[in-house]
């Protein structure tokens, strides 16, 4: 008993020496992009993927100190169990309980997205977190304050050293790491995916729902990402002060247009639409049945009866990815 233990310790010591001498070689890819998905759209040659960057990004993502009141993290409103959307509130609450104006978007498959937020105002993932960090209703920090909050926390030193070979904090190092963590949030293992890969079978009800989906939804919710990334009006005529995409382009034709969200994990991300106006999928489908086609001429007629609605919802439920919502690497680090 004594010998093997010593022997084991010896090996450990040896390995330890070796690790000191040779640079660590990463055996698995930091982010596995599914082979049957289109090529990713995220581009930043300055930000090569590594486990160390993702680990730093994950720590930053879940750090409530990165808000003025030290109680709101990215993860506060982007919850893994809800597909990284909020905890089923129509609008989210930031510092001092201040209420936002739109429904928190789910963070799913962002590597294939090139315009962010409901109005598409943000044009690159690396600058996306600047909006919630600096918004006075969300996290309420200036960028220099954000840097200070990271610098003052010594538990970050090791993470920065591992990712960047320096403990120096700057905007790029924070935001590039956050991008890497968000890029790693890939959902590709729902029942739908397994059926597509011939590893599972739809029920008859799901099969019928899939056919209805093909008829009515697929133009905007294109497979396999379940979004076309375009902006659509969805028959919206009344929307208070929120003019949607108009805010970004200042072009009247873009009034009431919003970005098509992904339908992946849609069962978990209720309520729906940009302001969370519909509580469940039945309400959404009913709204599509009656949407004003005079302002959205491209919208299919739907005309779904109750049993068709249930079939379509059965299919939408196959887009829930239980691997995604339970994956340890995506959760709050402890």
């Amino acid at each position: 008993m004594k010998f093997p233990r010593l022997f084991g310790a010896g090996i450990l010591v040896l390995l330890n020496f070796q690790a000191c001498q040779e640079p660590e070689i990463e055996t698995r890819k930091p982010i596995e992009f599914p082979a049957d998905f289109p090529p990713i759209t995220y581009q930043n040659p300055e930000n090569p993927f590594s486990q160390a960057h993702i680990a730093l990004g994950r720590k930053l993502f879940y750090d409530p100190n990165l808000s003025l009141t030290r109680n709101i993290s990215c993860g506060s409103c982007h919850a893994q169990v809800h597909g990284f959307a909020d905890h089923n509130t129509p609008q989210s609450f930031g510092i001092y309980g201040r209420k936002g104006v739109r429904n928190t978007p789910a963070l799913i498959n962002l590597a294939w997205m090139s315009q962010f937020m409901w109005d598409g105002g943000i044009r690159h993932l690396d600058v996306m977190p600047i909006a919630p960090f600096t918004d006075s209703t969300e996290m309420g920090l200036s960028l220099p304050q954000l840097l200070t909050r990271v610098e003052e926390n010594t538990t970050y030193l090791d993470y920065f050293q591992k990712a960047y070979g320096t403990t120096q904090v700057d905007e790029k190092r924070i935001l590039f790491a956050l991008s890497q963590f968000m890029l790693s949030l890939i959902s590709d293992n729902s029942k739908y995916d397994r059926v597509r890969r011939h590893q599972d079978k739809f029920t008859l009800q799901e099969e019928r729902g899939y056919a209805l989906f093909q008829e009515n939804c697929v133009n905007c919710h294109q497979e396999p990402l379940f979004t076309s990334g375009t902006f659509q009006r969805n028959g919206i005529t009344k929307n208070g002060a929120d003019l949607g995409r108009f805010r970004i382009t200042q072009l009247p034709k873009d009034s009431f247009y919003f970005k098509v969200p992904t339908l992946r994990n849609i069962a978990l991300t209720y309520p729906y639409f940009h302001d969370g106006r519909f509580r469940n999928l039945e309400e959404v489908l009913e709204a599509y049945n009656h949407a004003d086609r005079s302002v959205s001429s491209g919208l299919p007629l739907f005309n779904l009866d109750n049993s068709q609605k249930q079939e379509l919802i059965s299919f939408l439920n196959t887009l829930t990815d239980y691997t995604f919502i339970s994956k340890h690497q995506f959760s709050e680090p402890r």
Partner: protein
Amino acid sequence: MKKHTQKFILIALFTALVFGFSSCKDDTPVDNTPKTGEVNLEFSHVWGIDMAPFYLDQTYIHPMSKDTLKINLLKYYISNVVLHKNDGSSYKVPESYYLIDPNSNKVRIMGVPAGDYTKVDFLIGVDSLANFSGLQGGALNPSNGMFWSWSTGYIFVRVEGTSPQSSTGMFMYHLGGYEAPYIASHTKSLPFGNDILSVNPDASPTLHFNVNAAKFWHGPVKLGDLNVIHNIGEASTNMSKNFADGVVLDHIHP
């Protein structure tokens, strides 16, 4: 002229001789790096048609609108600097993005190929590519307060201050936009006329510009009608154009 030519031939021969000998001794590579020099850009801020000196936090009366106002913040981007020679060739200063304000109004550009230049081009604002290609550093670092977080893009020109004519007592113009029809960046192309910008390793010439801060209210724009711009659009585009019109080359220090 003849004298110069003779001198030149003599120097050339002598140089050839020296280099010839040295190449016999060892294989020290000849320094073929083209000669370069530096060029400075200096922006002086002025007020009104008589080009009175302009200072932050000083009260002025606008010559057209007659509004009383005080500017306490004025910042803008100068980018994409190109220096032109008479022979049609030009030098594009790489990564030229500069954030100018009255307290930080000088830019030093190193590594400009030696020669005589006759014109400068630059953009007041930031080119569209830099606007949406992600997170930038240096002058373009979003921490500089010249970045719209909610609608990716730079604030090209930012001016803020106070005025009793404004309904809120304040004014704040954040001007930007890099996509048609609301483009708020403006190219300046300023020929030097009879002057020449002579760049060589032993000189540090300066292009001296005047920037007229009264131009924001050209038209005249009244503070009682317009005290906030914080998005792209017609107002942003028009005001940035007026401001750009007020940027002129004053003189060149050799």
